[in-house]
């Protein structure tokens, strides 16, 4: 009897699963090929113990314009498969190894089918899995060989367990009015015509409607609709001494219908044009040591970069002997759990599950991470003390499991943790204008002619790739972490007068500086950005992005060093700029 009862139940479950996903040929092709791939085995070598398929099924639109003329308009429909195979076992597998790139088997799968042909999808998944498996088998052999020559002090597991998750949501895309967005981008870019001091400017919009498919051999199956739209405006001006100054403004939404109104976009772009023009006309700042007030957006940017960027951990991979083994980025907070990193009246929570805050959609929300884990809210800092980190399935010293924060691709087969909606809260606050008075007061006490107020940082950076390279080089010489520079910095004189200055950079600003927060405002500033793994999260610097937001009060930080740049300045053009008013409008 029990048996009989059982059978219909199983059949029922199966039929429900089918009802949910029937019609999704892609999901079916993934499931069937993944199932078949469990049987992969080469000669006497090990079979895979873990296989995962991720497919981004995307429909993207981009339009860019400058000075009222479209530069490019693109519509792309594509599917990007990412296939990972692990051989060995969770204690020791083919990941976390830095060796010569494995030859693998290369098949010419230039473009994954965008139509639902079961046969074509299976074929490409088959070849990609074969290639990944061969690469994994080769890597684990080399990793074993490398370990014969190196002593590992504290061996850590290579893969942490995670519960299987089934989350197959309906994909329903909201159509995007591409012509309207092209026209909007064109018209916004024409705003810059009224600012002849600007040397270069552009406005672009990017919109992606996608279905995120994830499946692994542990039974996790995910299909989630995702939307992202952002409008980016950039401007660059040249100061009379030749210095190039740039800034950008970005508007984001996770829902095509919830972008700011056209009027708000126009205000933002106009403010950018006016700000960059003003900065180019401002005097250069000079060396300064003392308190700095991060007001409004700059405070949230400071936490996003200096705190958010240090909340994920990385591991030093096993490397072939004699191979230089350095990580590009190691968290400044590594090993400091239990230590105080902020004033005791501050808490920090990362909450990807919260979708709105004070009626405003939160940009950093997500349902499932890159490893098929559903995230939960996480108190990272409590009463100033660091409690935990943003973790993935890669075990870290002191932390064995994931907390669902695998948001970006990491190095050597791992994923990287990143923030979602980061709430920085202060239990002791002052009214925001009070902070400026405090700054003046401290400066008076210390006999300083002025204090410094920062209203905007260049984070994520709007610099050119060439400039980022130069900054990286300079920083390597200094041996320090690279940190964003202020875009809008002001001298605050004892009488309250503000004077905009340009070309100031921080020296030695890092996670430790946050212990020197003297006071926080009673304001809450929301800053949204697209995080990526490029230096300074350079805008457009990497193809994988994690939507993020930081909600933080203005803060007054003591003992920061600022200094002007030292590089050679380019010359002004010989020929004056063309008169832009001659063209038809």
């Amino acid at each position: 009897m029990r048996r009989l009862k059982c059978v219909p139940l199983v059949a029922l479950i199966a039929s429900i699963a089918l009802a949910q996903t029937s019609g999704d040929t892609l999901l079916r092709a993934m499931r069937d090929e993944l199932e078949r791939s469990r049987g992969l085995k080469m000669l006497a070598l090990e079979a895979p113990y873990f296989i995962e398929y991720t497919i981004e099924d995307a429909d993207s639109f981009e339009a860019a314009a400058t000075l009222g003329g479209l530069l490019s308009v693109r519509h792309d429909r594509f599917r990007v498969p990412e296939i990972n195979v692990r051989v060995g076992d969770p204690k020791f597998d083919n990941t976390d190894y830095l060796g010569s790139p494995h030859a693998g088997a290369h098949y010419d799968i230039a473009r994954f089918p965008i139509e639902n042909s079961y046969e074509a999808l299976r074929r490409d998944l088959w070849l990609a899995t074969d290639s990944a498996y061969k690469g994994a088998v080769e890597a684990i052999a080399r990793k074993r060989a490398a370990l014969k020559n190196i002593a590992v002090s504290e061996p850590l597991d290579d893969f942490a367990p995670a519960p299987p998750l089934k989350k197959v949501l309906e994909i329903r895309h909201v159509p995007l009015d591409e012509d309207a967005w092209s026209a909007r981008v064109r018209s916004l870019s024409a705003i810059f015509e009224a600012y002849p001091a600007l040397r270069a400017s552009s406005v672009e919009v990017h919109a992606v409607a996608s279905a995120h498919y994830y499946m692994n051999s542990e039974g996790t199956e995910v299909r989630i609709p995702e939307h992202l739209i952002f409008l980016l405006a950039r401007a660059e001006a040249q100061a009379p001494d030749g210095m190039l100054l740039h800034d950008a403004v970005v508007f984001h939404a996770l829902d095509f219908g919830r972008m700011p109104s056209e009027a708000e976009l126009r205000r933002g772009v106009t403010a950018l044009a006016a700000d960059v023009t003003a900065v180019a006309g401002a005097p250069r700042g000079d060396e300064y040591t003392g308190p700095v007030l991060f007001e409004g957006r700059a405070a949230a940017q400071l936490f996003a970069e200096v705190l958010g960027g240090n909340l994920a951990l990385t591991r030093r991979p096993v490397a072939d002997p004699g191979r230089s083994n350095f990580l590009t980025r190691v968290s400044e907070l590594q090993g400091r759990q239990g230590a105080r990193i902020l004033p005791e009246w501050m808490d920090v929570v990362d909450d990807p599950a919260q979708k709105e805050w004070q009626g405003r959609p939160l940009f950093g929300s997500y349902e499932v991470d890159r490893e098929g884990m559903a995230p939960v809210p996480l108190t990272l800092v409590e009463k100033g003390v660091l409690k935990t980190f943003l973790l993935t399935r890669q075990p870290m010293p002191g932390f064995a499991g994931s907390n669902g924060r695998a948001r970006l691709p990491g190095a050597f087969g791992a994923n990287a943790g990143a923030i979602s909606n980061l709430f920085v809260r202060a239990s002791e606050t002052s009214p925001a204008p009070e902070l400026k008075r405090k700054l003046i007061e401290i400066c008076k006490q210390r006999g300083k002619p002025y204090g410094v107020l920062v209203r905007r940082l260049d984070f994520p950076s709007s610099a050119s790739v060439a400039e980022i390279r130069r900054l990286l080089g300079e920083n390597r010489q200094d041996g320090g972490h690279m940190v964003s520079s202020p875009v809008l910095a002001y001298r605050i004189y004892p009488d309250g007068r503000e004077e905009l200055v340009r070309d100031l950079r921080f020296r030695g600003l890092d996670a430790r500086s946050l212990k020197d927060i003297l006071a926080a405002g009673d304001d809450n500033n929301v800053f949204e950005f697209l995080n990526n793994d490029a230096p300074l999260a350079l805008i457009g610097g990497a193809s994988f992005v994690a939507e993020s937001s930081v909600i933080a009060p203005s803060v007054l930080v003591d003992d920061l060093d600022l200094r002007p740049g030292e590089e050679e300045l380019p010359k002004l053009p010989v020929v004056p700029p063309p008169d832009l008013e001659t063209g038809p409008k």
Partner: protein
Amino acid sequence: MSEELHRNFTVLRSKADPAPYFLAYEVTEEDFHGVSATLGAVTGNGQSKSRRLDVCVRVGTPQLDNYHRVRGERAQFTSGAPLTFEDQPAAIKHRIWLETDRAYRLAAQRLIKIRTNAEVKVAEEDASSDFSSEEPAERVAATRHAQFPTGQWTARVRKLSAKFSDYPEILTSSVAVLYEDETKYFVNSEGSRLQFGRGFARVIVSAQAKAMDGADLETNETFEASDPGGLPGDAEISHAVDRVARNLKALLLAPEAEPFAGPAIFSGRAAAVFFHEIFGHRVEGHRQKDEAEGQTFTKSAGSPVLPDFLSVIFDPARKKVGGIELNGWYTYDDEGVAARPVTVVDDGVLKAFLMSRSPISGFDHSNGHGRRQPGYEVVARQSNLLVESKRAVPGARLRAMLIEEIKRQNKAYGLYFEDVTGGVTNTGRQGVQAFKVVPILVYKVYPDGRPDELIRGADIVGTPLASFGKIVATSDKPEVFNGYCGAESGSVPVSAVSPAILVSEIEIEKRSKSQDRPPLLPFPTQTGVE
């Protein structure tokens, strides 16, 4: 463009030091459409429109300017900056202004370096100028825009690519169609003012597989036309799909080639690539004055360089040969010089080089072969290469001659190169003056009447001067190879046309190959599309 050229040139001439003596702008507008499919499923369907700006500023004098070649050093001033594709004067002028300034700075900087260098180094062999004088050209042709029926082609590539489902031994395959409508706008400070263009439509059928020993094998066929309407119909492409698939299947079973030297026939298409690589690249003008180049033919003008029954003409004005459209035609080159036929070899004797506006000793003017891909600096490049023969025999006779030659040399077999993908050639002085042509379909031809035997994994290798002397005869039927050629100035569309050739000796070597095994699991679905 003209207004901004005039404004920038006037101000730079009066205020800048060193002052420019020449300024040119070229804008390349590309309207692109493409759709591709594999096994009946579309893999890509896109279109884009772009304009790119190339700026040429010359400072100094035509005798010595910033483009002066210094021992293989490649000067790069232009950047191929993106320009709005809308006719919006403010945006266009502003970008032109910035790019002119950027290019001018680099030009001035390099001229100062060159002047210093010229005083330090020994005199160069070729003391010709850096820039030739040419008549300005003025012609604004109405821009033609052929329609690309995306919907129709999507259905067609879907259907055509599904035919590969019948061949489970083929790992990957695709049928793609691309169409690019290109318009160029050119102005210079000498008064040239041009607008011209053409279309490039292409169907590419390709398939890849892996032999049991790991060798990667690929076969493909392409069709070119200047208008999408000129591309072949479904029946013809369908036959190509079958040929590509069948040839690949045959290659999978074919034995690997052994190193060999002996007589061979190159099919017309294979011979065309042979001439393009081995001969064409060595008559590109700028190579004759670069001291880092091998200069195979530099001092051979007026001397025999090929067998006396062969002539080689480069004719960018020719649009078709035997009903087949050529890929390498244009009306003006990228320096605004009109396209014209150039007889480079007449009855075996070298008469001329392919010339851009960079003169060489004995050749003071351009012959309309200054070409580039947007974003690169112009150098002399090939157009439509045409091989003409006075010792032409019917194909059957040529084959009989091959058999005779095999017997005469007492070889076990000869070779027949039916199709090639392309090749590489090193023209530099560092490294060996050698070439390599990569054949796809190679057959052993036996003298005893046994059927020809397909082999795989053979690369043709050789040195240029030795190879030309071994051409014995040609067939009487020219064949066309259309393609894209990559060199210093980027990728440019070219054609090569040649009859089949019989050579008394050619050398092949084993191709390097992958060590990977074929996929471990079999093709996942043996039965057709769901």
